[in-house]
């Protein structure tokens, strides 16, 4: 559906990397400017930002934890966007992953941890995967625009979540719409007991990046995705099974978003609440684009944005600023990035001549 972009594996990535850095710089500059406009001491605000982001052991833990969730979603989106399949439904797939893992761990609360944890994670993966299946089938069989369908699935997931926590799954002992706590053996094992960062998050955050990179650039599957992303017609001409590719890319993306949701429950929230919905699905889109749809770029961008998010929430708490600064910042990143990147592309293609005639 969306085309006309140049991808990272063409070794012309210098322009794109420049665009990423430029947009991030502009965004941060806007942030600092807004501190100034709010009349707070800019230097101490930056200090608070730093401490909230990576200044203390706790904040490092929190940042890595948040980054792992965002990175999972964005790795999945990288696969899907490479094939030009616009999965806007990461938010809903994430929710379904969270729901599934909660239901499973609550149902089998007597299983030991070494069975319960993998089982819950897997069910989260499956839930996210299945939630992406319907839009995939509709796209492939009826040519229905996947942006619309995946988005609708987000809203439906949201209402399913809302119904569950105010109905069947609601904790009878609590006044709030939330599920009971998951059993303690389902909690993801922490690296250091004091801090929330857990082994699985950290491993996934770091190990998946090279894995996805290898898949996209060094396998036939990845090459098929790239060809599909370049042009569906050419993919058909090359004999590729376009339907299978489209659905696989959506399923992989859904699976990773579902996994992210499961980790949110098992590693951070420990219960199902409406508050788990924080727009990570959309943040993931921003990260994937600003990271130039490259797994390493996504890794860096996830860590960066996660640290920014934590830092900003610290600043907002301390200085009584309205929350939402992160959201507006993300939007600025995105708009600046697309403008800069395409502007640079346009300027550079003007100088590229047709070679050979």
């Amino acid at each position, binding site marked *: 559906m*969306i085309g006309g972009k140049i991808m990272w594996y063409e070794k012309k990535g210098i322009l794109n990397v420049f665009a990423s850095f430029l947009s991030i710089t502009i965004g941060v500059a806007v942030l600092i400017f807004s501190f100034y406009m709010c009349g707070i001491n800019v230097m101490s605000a930056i200090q608070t930002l730093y401490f909230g982001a990576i200044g203390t052991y706790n904040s490092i833990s929190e940042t890595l934890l948040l980054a792992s969730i965002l990175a999972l979603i964005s790795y999945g989106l990288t696969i899907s966007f490479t094939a030009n399949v616009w999965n806007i439904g990461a938010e809903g797939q994430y929710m379904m992953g969270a729901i599934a893992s909660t239901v499973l761990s609550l149902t089998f609360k007597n299983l030991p941890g070494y069975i319960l944890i993998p089982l819950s994670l897997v069910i989260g993966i499956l839930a996210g995967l299945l939630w992406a299946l319907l839009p995939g089938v509709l796209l492939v069989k009826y040519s229905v625009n996947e942006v619309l369908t995946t988005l*609708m699935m987000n809203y439906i997931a949201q209402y399913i979540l809302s119904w569950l926590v105010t109905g069947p799954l609601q904790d009878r002992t609590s006044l709030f719409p939330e599920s009971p706590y998951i059993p303690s053996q389902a909690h993801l094992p922490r690296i250091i007991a004091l801090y929330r960062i857990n082994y699985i998050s950290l491993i996934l955050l770091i190990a998946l990046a090279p894995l996805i990179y290898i898949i996209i650039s060094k396998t036939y599957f990845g090459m098929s995705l790239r060809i599909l992303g370049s042009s569906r017609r050419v993919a058909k001409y090359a004999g590729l099974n376009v339907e299978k590719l489209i659905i696989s890319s959506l399923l992989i993306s859904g699976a990773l978003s579902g996994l992210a949701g499961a980790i949110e429950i098992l590693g951070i929230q420990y219960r199902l609440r409406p508050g788990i919905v924080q727009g990570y699905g959309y943040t993931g889109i921003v990260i994937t684009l600003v990271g130039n749809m490259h797994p390493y770029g996504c890794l860096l961008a996830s860590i960066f944005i996660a640290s920014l998010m934590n830092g900003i929430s610290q600043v907002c708490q301390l200085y009584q600023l309205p929350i*939402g600064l992160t*959201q507006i910042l993300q939007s600025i990143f995105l708009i600046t990035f697309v403008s800069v990147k*395409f502007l640079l*592309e346009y300027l550079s293609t003007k100088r590229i001549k047709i070679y050979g005639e």
Partner: protein
Amino acid sequence: MDIGLLVTYLLRDALWLMTPLFYAAIGEFIVEKAGVLNLGIEGMMLISAFVAFAIGFLFENPYIALLIGCLAGILVNSLFYILFQLIGVDQSLAGLSITIFGSGVTFFAFRAMIGYSTSASPPVVKNIISDLPLPILSRLPILGFILFDQNPFVYFSFLLLFLFYVAEKSDIGLKIRTIGEDPSIADFIGIDVYKFRLICVIVQGFLSGVAGSMLTISIYNTFLDNITAGLGFIAITMVILGGWNPIRIFYSSFLFGLIYALQFRVQMYGASWLPYQFALSLPYIVTIILLAVFGRKYRPPTSLGKPYKRIR
């Protein structure tokens, strides 16, 4: 409640509740006819809704709020135009960026605004644009109630339908359609693609501005996060299901108006066995089903979504 009365109320509510959707859909219809796919309507509507709310709350005049809301819509859509036509950002990417931008900006701005407000109660727009029964016509039995005892936006929606039906058959309509079918041919024969697309974008900005503003200063009287709830995307669906034809778009929007009306009544009279979330998710479920069944029925404009830059 007696069935006849219920149906009457439903029809009347449907015509009323479909207005934001219809205005947004007609706006999208124009730009799609010119070959532009705007996924940013949602962001545009959100920003207009918030701006109208803010002005309405601060100045207590809904008409000025509406005006400024429309202006906001035009401004946001101009940003979209700069992104996709002047800079060359892919249309869908530009649209999504605008939508994400819209939700981010309004999320923040709303909190910033009520953060600074001194009142303890939730912010409400004091004067909203409410019903305007037409003098004699509204006394007609049944039809009078449904058609002529309505919000002024409903009256204007009929006017809008008429205007666009006529415009489509006009010379300007033909030129815009040419751009949507093949912009390079249009450019070659001297139709200024940039100019016409800009006009369509401005008109869409205005209409989406009305659609968004309507939410906070007429249908409801306050702003909520994501008050548009996917309306912008459902509007795009209306254009697809309506096959790029104003009358069919009106019918599709009316169908959804009925769904919203049903939702409203279900919430009022409550069916305790049915969780309210089901009613709320109905529009989205119906959208998916309709797209699956009727999505391929009509052909879109040939160059829809494809980038075009002037070569000459």
